[in-house]
């Protein structure tokens, strides 16, 4: 990504030398050396990143609040294996971006514009921009709410969030940025000790995964479908496709690295499922004690958990929401900046410095700053945005899945890495499932008496 679009610093022996190329070559040298020495553990360490980041990044503030609301409303039951299923579907979609990125060495937006033309590219970008801005606003809602539990003022929390995103400027290398963000993202597993502190009935958890039950007691009416759709939107969204393909190409993955890219994505899906399930289990005591949680924000959830998880557990919960918001603000800002750079054909790489890719870094920080500022506007309907953001993400997914599947079957781009019949069946299954879930939601809104 971005190779050949950055102004060269010097030329030597007829070769373009830039900081970006230098960084990319260093990364490839490390990978090649590990592969030649058959150091498989080292090779995996070098190649993991985009998959874990995208999956844990999608366990963002509104997603964790959605899982909390699910646990508090339905307890341990149907939704636990259902969330595992949605992450399996997310893996199916994200695996395609690994192949697309490794084969084409460019981002998702660039490929859509090149193959489908400007009209369809603009539609895809409108969906991405719309959902990214909405989602980023909710990340800052999560950051403010999580920080608020510890008495940190709103303005300081927003400034801290934008400041963290701005740290991207000093990384100067994709590798450094990726490792720092990964370290923060793995903190998403903080929900596991919170779940343990609530002393759940582990037999019931195992039974839920084995039997997909108990089902919601009032069936699948409008409010249950809204939560179901929000949980799907908590795992499958358009920004993930743009981010992972952008990150795979910026990391410099080659076709020989596809297997490790798949392992990276599967590992990310597993860790994200673990954190999401833990969050749901942690909130389930609120269901058992009939706590009305429909209007709870992050701070209220944390406070409500004090009698069951203790002050320490509640503080960990608030910290988890804060962390989820911070990681997602970073990754979603990056996905916006990648897409902007690809569409405008400007330099767009985390291996480039701010002077080499000014518009890339400007967009990255600007979208975060705008979203953070909106959260500070008094009277802005934040609750409605938080509630609806995951649903909007699901509803914009079917065209995104269509672009993805068409590109994955484009022989001119993919060659031997084209999707197999089995992978296509799974991919179409994801698209149909997401579209049908959206239709069921629409019917439930238009006909409030509707039940599945």
């Amino acid at each position, binding site marked *: 990504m971005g190779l050949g679009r950055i102004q060269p610093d010097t030329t030597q022996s007829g070769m373009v030398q830039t900081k970006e190329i230098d960084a990319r070559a260093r990364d490839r*040298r490390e990978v090649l050396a590990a592969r030649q020495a058959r150091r498989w553990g080292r090779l995996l360490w070098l190649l993991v990143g985009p998959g874990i980041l995208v999956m844990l990044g999608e366990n963002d503030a509104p997603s964790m609040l959605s899982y909390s609301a699910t646990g508090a409303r339905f307890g341990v039951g149907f939704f636990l294996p259902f969330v595992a299923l949605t992450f399996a579907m997310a893996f199916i979609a994200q695996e395609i971006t690994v192949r697309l990125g490794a084969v084409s060495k460019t981002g998702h937006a660039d490929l859509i514009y090149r*193959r489908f033309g400007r009209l369809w590219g603009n539609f895809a970008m409108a969906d991405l921009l719309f959902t990214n801005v909405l989602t980023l606003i909710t990340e800052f809602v999560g950051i403010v709410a999580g920080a608020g539990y510890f008495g940190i003022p709103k303005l300081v929390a927003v400034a801290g969030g934008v400041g963290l995103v701005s740290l991207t400027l000093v990384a100067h290398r994709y590798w450094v940025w990726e490792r720092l963000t990964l370290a923060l993202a793995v903190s998403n597993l903080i929900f596991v000790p919170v779940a343990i502190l609530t002393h759940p009935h582990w037999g019931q958890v195992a039974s839920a995964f084995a039997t997909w039950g108990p089902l919601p007691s009032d069936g699948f009416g409008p409010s249950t479908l809204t939560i179901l759709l929000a949980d799907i939107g908590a795992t499958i969204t358009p920004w993930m496709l743009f981010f992972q393909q952008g990150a795979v190409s910026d990391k410099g993955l080659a076709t020989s690295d596809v297997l490790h890219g798949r392992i990276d994505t599967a590992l990310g899906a597993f860790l994200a499922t673990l954190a999401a399930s833990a969050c749901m289990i942690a909130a389930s005591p609120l269901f058992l004690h009939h706590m009305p949680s429909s209007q709870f924000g992050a701070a209220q959830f944390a406070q409500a958990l004090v009698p069951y998880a203790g002050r320490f557990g509640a503080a960990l919960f608030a910290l988890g929401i804060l962390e989820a918001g911070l990681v997602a603000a970073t990754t979603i800002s990056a996905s916006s900046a990648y897409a902007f750079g690809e569409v405008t054909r400007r330099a767009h790489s985390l291996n480039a410095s701010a002077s080499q890719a000014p518009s890339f870094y400007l967009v990255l920080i600007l979208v975060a700053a705008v979203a953070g500022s909106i959260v500070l506007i008094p009277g802005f309907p934040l609750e409605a945005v938080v509630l609806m953001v995951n649903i909007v993400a699901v509803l914009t997914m079917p065209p995104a899945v269509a672009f993805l599947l068409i590109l994955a079957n484009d022989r001119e781009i993919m060659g031997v890495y084209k999707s197999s019949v089995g992978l296509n069946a799974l991919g179409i299954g994801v698209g149909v499932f997401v579209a049908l879930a959206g239709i069921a939601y629409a019917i439930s809104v238009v006909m409030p008496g509707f039940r599945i």
Partner: protein
Amino acid sequence: MKKQPSPPAPGSDSSLGEQPEWIETALAEHWQTRAWLEKLEPMPMNLGLKSLMWMLRVYVLFMITVVGINVAQMWH
């Protein structure tokens, strides 16, 4: 077949700027792909594909309207 140059040891002091041949080797696949990508033309879209894309576009617009209705219902 031309022998590929061995990579310098990871962590060695030698600057990559002094080893352009190695950079070329390390990034050969990337540069070939970039050159190929610049020549990539838009794909021919038949009527069925265009219809599917428009149908999905209408789906998104309809669903966004439904979300608006849902938000209005919740506020009232």
